[in-house]
């Protein structure tokens, strides 16, 4: 596909052609992501609605399918109010600072066998670096709003993100030890085989820590003290309206999809098929044979499952108290990851476990 694009755009001078090819890969991904975000908001309201024995949105379009578009149009035509004593520049830049890392991280995501927009060597580090940048949007939004509530939200979220980033980083250390590489494509490759050879099994504690920390990193319920509508109104984005608010919203949901995708790639085999094991041999001759092949389909299915877990968590658990969040991050997750890294190291040295060939 890339070779074809390169041929097609051959008439352009070299630097322009390279730029055009890159943009041609980025644009579809971003458009699909934004559409996913739009429908994720709809699905969230539907899923939580049914979990709470309600119907959820059902007025706009058939079964409420056009609800996201109604929301978007409403947000786009609303006025962006800048508070009078706010720091105007940072107030308007903050939403952008939160959306850019959420989208840029997708560059290294292995979407299907042998393809990622940027197949870079230190992909895992790149992800860590970029997710750690998303905190600036929140902090600056809270500070620039010149509002006590927003500032409290920013403080909470900054402390929370710093705490959970460490646990996430250690969980990723475990993944890179098992995969023997920092490249996400190679890590996915290392999980080939049925669902029993994916990393969730040998790295189960790290998987739990990573996913829960991911929920905390994205400031989602039950870790949403940064918004905490019952305590501090809406936290860091209390002063935002219209498009500026919509961008924060977009960033939060894009981050959710990202965490779901990364969990799928690092612990659930990415684009590998759930049915790849020898148990499902009988599918080979049937029209369903393609389900045994690794494909984008499987990555999407896994992302959808983890997104559902996000919504499920939100509908199930009450909000954590702030000190409990800190305790969970520092005193539970970090020791768990450290212990499991030690265990993994011993297993690698002793040549037991699925990674004895790699490592």
């Amino acid at each position, binding site marked *: 596909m890339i070779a074809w694009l390169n041929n097609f755009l051959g008439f352009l001078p070299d630097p322009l052609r390279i730029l055009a090819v890159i943009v041609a890969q980025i644009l579809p991904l971003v458009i699909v992501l934004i559409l996913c975000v739009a429908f994720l908001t709809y699905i969230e309201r539907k899923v939580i609605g049914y979990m709470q024995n309600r119907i959820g949105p059902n007025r706009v379009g058939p079964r409420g399918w056009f609800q996201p578009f109604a929301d978007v149009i409403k947000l786009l035509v609303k006025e962006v109010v800048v508070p009078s004593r706010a720091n105007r520049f940072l107030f308007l830049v903050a939403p952008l600072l939160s959306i850019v890392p959420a989208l840029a991280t997708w560059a290294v995501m292995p979407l299907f066998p042998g393809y990622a927009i940027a197949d870079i060597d230190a992909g895992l580090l790149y992800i860590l670096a970029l997710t750690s940048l998303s905190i600036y949007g929140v*902090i600056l939004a809270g500070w620039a709003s010149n509002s006590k509530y927003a500032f409290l939200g920013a403080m909470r979220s900054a402390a929370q993100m710093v705490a959970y980033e460490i646990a996430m980083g250690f969980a990723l250390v475990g993944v890179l030890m098992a995969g023997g590489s920092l490249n996400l494509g190679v890590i996915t490759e290392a999980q080939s085989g049925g669902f029993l050879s994916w990393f969730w099994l040998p790295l189960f504690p790290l998987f739990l820590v990573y996913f829960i920390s991911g929920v905390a990193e994205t400031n989602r319920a039950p870790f949403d003290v940064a918004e905490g509508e019952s305590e501090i109104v809406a936290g860091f984005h209390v002063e935002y309206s219209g498009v500026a608010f919509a961008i924060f919203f977009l960033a939060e949901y894009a981050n959710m999809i990202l965490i779901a995708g990364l969990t799928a790639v690092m612990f659930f085999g990415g684009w590998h098929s759930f049915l790849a094991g020898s148990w499902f041999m009988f599918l080979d001759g049937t029209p369903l044979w393609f389900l045994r092949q690794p494909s984008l389909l499987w990555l999407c299915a896994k992302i959808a499952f983890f997104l559902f877990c996000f919504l499920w968590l939100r509908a199930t658990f009450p909000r954590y108290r702030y000190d409990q969040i800190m305790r969970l991050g520092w005193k539970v997750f970090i020791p768990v990851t450290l212990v499991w890294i030690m265990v993994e190291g011993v297993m690698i040295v002793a040549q037991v476990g699925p990674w004895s060939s790699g490592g």
Partner: protein
Amino acid sequence: MITLLIFGVLALVLVSAALGVIVSRNPVYAAMWLVLSFVTSAVLWLLIEAEFLAIVLVLVYVGAVMVLFLFVVMMLDVDVAATREGFTRYAPAGTVVAAVIVAELLSVLWLRGSGLPIAQPLASQPAGHSNTREIGLALYGSHVFEFELAAFLLLLAIVAAIMLTHRQRPGLKVQDIAAQVRVRREDRVRIVKMDAERDP
């Protein structure tokens, strides 16, 4: 050619961001300028194919250190006038320091022209060369002792810093979460068996 152009633009951005750090009056702006200069120098490192160092620079300095900086700076109510008070008094000392730094930079430029091995341009590596793997091998192979020593020192520093700032305030009411989790029904409720009421 293009590389040179990119380098020029980035160098310009880097220098102006560094200037922004020292001339901006608002401390939050100064911190953001510093973030910009870190990111720009990371990109400069990418240009010389040091991608591991570049990403780690962003991860450690922008992702962690500067967040804490910003945290502190936002909570301080910095009085701009007070910080400018000693400017004329410290200006001579500042000039001396600046002159020394400029002299050092010039001496690096002179070294470049002198043909010493330090002046060799970095060899560009073939595609597929893993910068990260090389650094890992160097750190955990030939330099493992120094590396572990540094790690131990850092751990010591962490423990010392926590010990210095950790204090037990008397009369502070905190929950003991472990005790809360351990609590059993028998500690809280007592089921009393009573006979049903009878007429006397």
